[in-house]
């Protein structure tokens, strides 16, 4: 992939709201070229979407829980883990699914409104799937850092003095 495309992706990955004109100046191409590049990258599925990182713990009266679930499964001849993964990732409460090396197979991240809701998902939906051998559920107690962003920290806080040589 072209150098400028990688630069563009890295900028957008960090800040999806950076506007076209600013990006165009930063990577030294025209705004139209930026638009075209973004369209191309979307088409090639290099850009899948634009989301906002929310620290829900700072949202007043919002309740929610998240859990990471280690899942052991029996792989199926011909399709390996893909089939079972696709049965799991289609549930809307599942936010991420990874195939892991090590002592279990799939790592599943789940979000719900209450612990009850998540528990019910695990016992009723996940562990009842044919090829699932076992599940271990870990509730997330506190998020310190997510997707490279540190929570609970005033990142905009400039500690430098105003004018220096």
């Amino acid at each position: 992939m072209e150098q400028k495309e990688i630069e563009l992706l890295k900028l957008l990955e960090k800040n999806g709201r950076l506007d076209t004109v600013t990006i165009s100046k930063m990577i030294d191409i025209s705004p139209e070229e930026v638009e075209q590049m973004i369209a191309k990258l979307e088409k090639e599925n290099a850009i899948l979407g634009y989301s906002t990182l929310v620290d829900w713990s700072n949202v007043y009266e919002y309740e929610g829980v998240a859990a990471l679930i280690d899942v052991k499964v029996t792989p199926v001849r011909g399709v390996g883990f893909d089939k079972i993964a696709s049965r799991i990732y289609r549930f809307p409460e599942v936010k991420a699914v990874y195939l892991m090396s090590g002592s279990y197979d799939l790592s599943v991240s789940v979000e719900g409104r209450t612990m009850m809701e998540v528990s019910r998902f695990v016992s009723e939906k996940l562990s009842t799937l044919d090829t699932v051998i076992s599940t271990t559920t870990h509730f997330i107690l506190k998020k310190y850092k997510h997707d490279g962003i540190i929570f609970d920290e005033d990142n905009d806080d400039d500690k430098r003095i105003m004018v220096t040589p």
Partner: protein
Amino acid sequence: MSTSYLAKNVENLKPSGIRKFFDLASKMDNVISLGVGEPDFVTPWNVIEASYHSLEKGYTAYTANAGLMELREAISDYLNKTFSISYEPESQVLVTVGASQAIDLALRAVVDPEDEVLIVEPCFVSYGPAISLAGGIPVPISAQAKNEFKITPEQIEEAVTEKTKAIVLCSPNNPTGTVLNQSELEEVSSVICKHDLLVISDEIYAELSYDDQAASIASINGMTDRTVVISGFSKSFAMTGWRLGYAVGPTDIIRAMTKIHQYTMMCAPTMAQHGALEALRNGNDSVMEMKTSYRQRRNLVVKALNEMGLSCHLPGGAFYVFPSIRETGLSSETFAQKLLEEEGVAVVPGHVFGESGEGYIRCSYATSIKQLDEAMKRMNRFVEKHT
């Protein structure tokens, strides 16, 4: 009237023009500062962690005067790898309290009373005063905007007298961002050799060059033995507050500098030296990342300034742009003051870096994109109003 106990040469020093803007800006709210001469990054975590670790292990005593041997070796390796020059860690490397102290030591080690030292303005504000405090006479040469503020051999030729002992160079430059390339350095070197001058080469921004790796004048044929290279960790590793720099050069000069250092400073801070060692060993990825970010911001600011009619060249390094404000008809000082009062944007007027900086301002782009975008909007409005 009571007697003044102050030494004459201190009394005669002009207060820095930067101070005034600092005082003004810090009294106001909602100011966006493009006046900061230091990185907006926090020091890379591995460096901070290494320094913590050294404290935990009890490395809290003095080090050797010239600095930790491992650090001197790492500095020597780095210079060898980057510029292909070899310095003996035992006798040709001195670890200092910032590049600032290294500049002071170099000047004190070589300047006799009344010696003239050439400086190329616009330049970092410390050179002139440091030369005066060492007993010498600073002789400014004005680099010209039409040459993108690059010094020419002819200008050096003109300024040299029998009393000239040394010249202070700085590339990439603060405040202009200008970088002298290999052939420009060679041209300058030939006049320097001809007049048998010493070079004090401030290369603190060497890692922050965006088009080609900045060259070191010390690597040019015949220059190694007449150049003291000054550098440090402040800019490239975002370590300004750690106060750590170094000087490398000919054995006799580094020895002399070490002698002064030993009597007046003992050694650079130990915990900072441990951090610096980690920075040189494992800091390259962080430097590359910061460099990419500076380059993008440089492009953004240079385009925005030129679009609003404040023309400037594309600076090859450091994190400053130095646009002309002549279009507005205002002096640098008035421009900077009004811009601060009317739009809440702090910049540094060019004349504080020397007479040839008049008609220009220094904008540091080591600030977030969000702030830069807003600053450019405000400046655009300001320029429209005043032209």
